[in-house]
């Protein structure tokens, strides 16, 4: 037999035997993964890139089924895969998709003084190892821009005040910055959320006042001011119940230290029409003295003082108040 035929038979035979054996073994030893898992595995890109934080697509598929993990961790898959997974798992995509990263610290270079001169490497994690960074507030943002360097979408830029600024349009809420931040001052909030507390200091009043001009010093004003009881004091910080909060913005304006942030681009103001009977209900509920007028006569809203919270609108018994120029409410649904 010539070498030619011998080699064809050997290699071909070997290939055939191994192929059949492998096929047989696959059938015999196949791990009974659930039908759901198989579907998810098929929907994932299969590139095993590890962006989800697991060794591969198969592992992530398994974790989705068994540990009920969120389905939005696949970055390369993007929206397409997310939609497929949403269909398979029967999950509401809106709740997942519409999130955004938010910085919950307002203490930039100007607001929060420095404890010592830091001359080391230009990475937050490195500065963090040095007594938790050189900001005098040990809870706040280090401000060296690690989040900006890890954001795969270029949605975070550092401003001159050494604070990260998050671009609403570019942010996909992938959560990478949240995970990477050594100080945990980045969180994911619902995209429709406009108002949030931007301070993480657990220190007591004076200690906060000494180091930061915009830190919350536990004065309780916002908690008393909130008409919806959405705020409760936990430790030394008010905690907001996102289900109760209506984004009215009262806390933002009542806060003596400007520790709250308002993402709304514009707020409406109250306009009182001629239907006003002068009952004075609106004056009672307004926390900003933005409505004046004598009893039994048409009241007048003061635009400069009005913050557009809408309390008077809800309180007016004759519906004489309209909220005008409500740009802020449009951005809320955008």
């Amino acid at each position, binding site marked *: 037999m010539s070498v030619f035929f*011998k080699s064809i038979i*050997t*290699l071909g035979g*070997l290939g055939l035997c191994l192929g059949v*054996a492998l096929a047989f073994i696959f059938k015999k030893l196949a791990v009974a993964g659930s039908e759901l898992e198989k579907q998810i595995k098929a929907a994932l890109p299969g590139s095993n890139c590890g962006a989800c934080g697991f*060794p*591969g697509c198969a592992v992530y598929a398994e974790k989705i089924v068994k540990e009920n993990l969120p389905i939005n961790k696949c970055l390369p898959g993007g929206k397409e895969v997310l939609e497929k997974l949403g269909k398979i798992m029967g999950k509401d995509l809106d709740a997942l998709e519409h999130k955004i990263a938010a910085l919950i610290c307002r203490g930039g270079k100007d607001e929060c003084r420095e404890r010592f001169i830091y001359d080391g*490497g230009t*990475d937050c*994690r490195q500065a963090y190892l040095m007594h938790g960074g050189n900001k005098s507030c040990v809870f706040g943002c280090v401000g060296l821009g690690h989040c900006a360097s890890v954001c795969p979408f270029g949605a975070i830029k550092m401003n001159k005040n050494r604070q990260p600024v998050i671009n609403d349009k570019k942010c996909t809420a992938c959560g990478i910055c949240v995970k990477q931040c050594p100080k945990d001052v980045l969180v994911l909030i619902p995209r429709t959320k406009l108002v949030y507390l931007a301070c993480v200091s657990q220190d007591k009043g004076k200690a906060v006042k000494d180091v930061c001009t915009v830190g919350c010093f536990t004065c309780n004003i916002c908690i008393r001011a909130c008409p919806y009881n959405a705020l409760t004091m936990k430790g030394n910080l008010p905690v907001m119940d996102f289900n109760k909060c209506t984004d009215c913005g009262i806390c933002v304006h009542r806060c003596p230290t400007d520790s709250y942030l308002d993402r709304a681009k514009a707020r409406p103001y109250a306009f009182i029409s001629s239907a006003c009977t002068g009952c004075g209900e609106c004056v009672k509920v307004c926390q900003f003295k933005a409505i004046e007028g004598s009893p039994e006569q048409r009241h007048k809203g003061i635009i400069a003082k009005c913050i557009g919270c809408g309390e008077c609108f809800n309180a007016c018994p004759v519906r004489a108040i309209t909220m005008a120029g409500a740009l802020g409410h449009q951005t809320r649904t955008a």
Partner: protein
Amino acid sequence: MTTNPLLIFIAAFIVNNIILIRYLGLCPFFGVSTTLTTAFGMSTACLFVMLIATWVTWTIYHFLLLPLDLIFLRTAVFILIIATLVQFVEIFLKKNFKALYSAMGIYLPLITTNCAILAVTFLAIDYRFSLILATIFALGNALGFGLVIVLFSAIRERLEFAPLSRSFKGYPIAFIAASLVALAFLGFIGLFGLPL
């Protein structure tokens, strides 16, 4: 050439290190040495696959290819054998040793047709090792692979923090660091070693 098992082991482990002296298996070396955990996973998978591949290919070579006088087919046959073998091992582990499977995870199939694996099986035959010596040789190579990749992951983790210019960030500086580590390992060459 020496047949002392200890010398062969040390030669494969350090002196003729598969990554730094032979320049094989560079793809996993740079690909997964970014963190310690991935480096460790890859090392275990490599150890596992290298040992089994050496056993099986050695047997196939000596009891199939040599008697049939088909030595020239060894590249094709070895790749075929190793690929099938790893597939089989993967599915076997998945079924019976779940913990081991999840520890090696994705690295097992990744190492399948790696040049380091193929090179070790070839070298074990080229050096005319017996099966026992081939096992020791494979073990040394796999541990050497693991040693270097774990050591290098420590360097990579440090490099993450290094204040570098943008053009050097990532792979460029990793290659430069690797060359320096390779130079350091070159010092062992004067000791003894297998002919390259």
